[in-house]
């Protein structure tokens, strides 16, 4: 078969390859979103367990308390002094439990913005948001699962709101937090810091984990590179984090690490997005 050589067919070939590459990229991004969603669900389930347990117990106690109150107050001729005191005691307790229930429900509700953010289809337009608020929402998701081994500390400076793709930033921060927690073998600390530095917002996640050995450093942001066991790591996390931070937000991402001592990941997000505010 005689093939037409020449720039036209080469151009076609390049265009075809580019389309294929974009398709594969798209599928990788989808796979990462699914993995992120799985991660999010794990965090949520851990975090919801305690407030739910409390609400369930309190509700049962409130029901029983009300029954007892009913009996006490239905005594013929009205309650005697001792019963009146007991009734007042029970009322006080039930009031306290209702307040605890309120707190427990608020804790569960606090998870909802994170879920909504993840579940939203990739936003086409960035919107104004407080990076500290995004961080605060992701913390309980990692915290609940790892808190027996890891203490989470925050050092957040007041930040101006910036235009950003909120669901993507949720994913980035959750990814960095979980990486940090998984790097810690026995007990350890994670410190999350935010600072405004000139025209940038600087977010850092430091852990006291096992660190990244020198030979792995150049590969850290490579798609498919992972040191986690099969089923735990997909190797997509940091490469997509970089895409989100650098390509979508015009930011920077870097890290420093000392094997045996720990690792710190740095994310810089510009106060002014590329191309001016509002997209």
């Amino acid at each position, binding site marked *: 078969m005689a093939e037409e050589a020449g720039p036209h067919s080469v151009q076609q070939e390049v265009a075809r390859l580019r389309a294929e590459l974009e398709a594969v990229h798209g599928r990788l991004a989808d796979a990462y979103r699914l993995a992120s969603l799985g991660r999010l669900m794990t965090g949520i*389930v851990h975090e919801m367990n305690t407030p739910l347990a409390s609400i369930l117990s309190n509700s049962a106690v409130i029901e029983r308390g009300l029954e007892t109150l009913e009996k006490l107050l239905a005594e013929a001729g009205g309650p005697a002094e001792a019963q009146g005191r007991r009734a007042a005691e029970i009322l006080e307790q039930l009031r306290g439990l209702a307040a605890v229930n309120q707190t427990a429900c608020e804790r569960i509700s606090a998870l909802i913005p994170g879920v909504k953010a993840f579940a939203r289809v990739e936003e086409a337009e960035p919107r104004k948001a407080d990076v500290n608020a995004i961080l605060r929402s992701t913390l309980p998701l990692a915290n609940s699962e790892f808190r*027996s081994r890891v203490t989470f500390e925050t050092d957040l400076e007041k930040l101006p709101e910036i235009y950003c793709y909120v669901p993507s930033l949720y994913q980035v921060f959750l990814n960095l937090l979980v990486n940090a927690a998984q790097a810690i073998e026995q007990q350890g600390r994670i410190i999350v810091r935010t600072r405004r530095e000139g025209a940038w917002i600087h977010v850092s996640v430091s852990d006291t984990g096992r660190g990244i050995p020198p030979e792995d450093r150049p590969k850290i942001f490579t798609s498919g590179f992972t040191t986690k066991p099969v089923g735990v790591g997909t190797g997509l996390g940091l490469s997509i984090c970089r895409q989100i931070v650098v390509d979508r937000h015009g930011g920077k991402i870097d890290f420093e690490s000392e094997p045996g001592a720990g690792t710190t990941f740095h994310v810089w997000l510009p106060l002014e997005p590329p191309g001016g505010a509002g997209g």
Partner: protein
Amino acid sequence: MSLNSKPAVLIVDDEEMVVTSIRAFLKLETDYVVHGFTNPEEAAKFLESHLVDVAVADYVMPKMNGIQFLARAKHLQPEATRVLLTGYADKQSAIQAINELALFQYVEKPWDNAALLLVIQSGIERAQLIRQLRDKISELDMAHTSLKDVQSRLLRAFM
């Protein structure tokens, strides 16, 4: 057989709302004395000088987990009954606790109040029976010793 004092239950969970909920439930349904702690170190210190019948600890706690705490409790008050609260993913740790700590029961979160009450009730019964048994054996020992004493004096008198 009358009890000297009301049964005492120790609850340790780093989550304040869990301690509040369990304490409120026991206060409404029982006359047990409930000691609640969110700091396992403080709870362990408390056990050095206060007898309890049951120690209930949550597994997932920072700095000292439930198994480590119950190991301390076992050392300080071996007759007190040990109960572990576990989350849905902690079955393996429950098994470890049963083996290493002579754990009495484990209760999964979220717990059912009636089931928890049964466990605590049985735990109190067990602790008090063990203590009474230990006291009786002690008494028997002393009685045995003084009987032997009487016996040897009798023998000396008649030999």
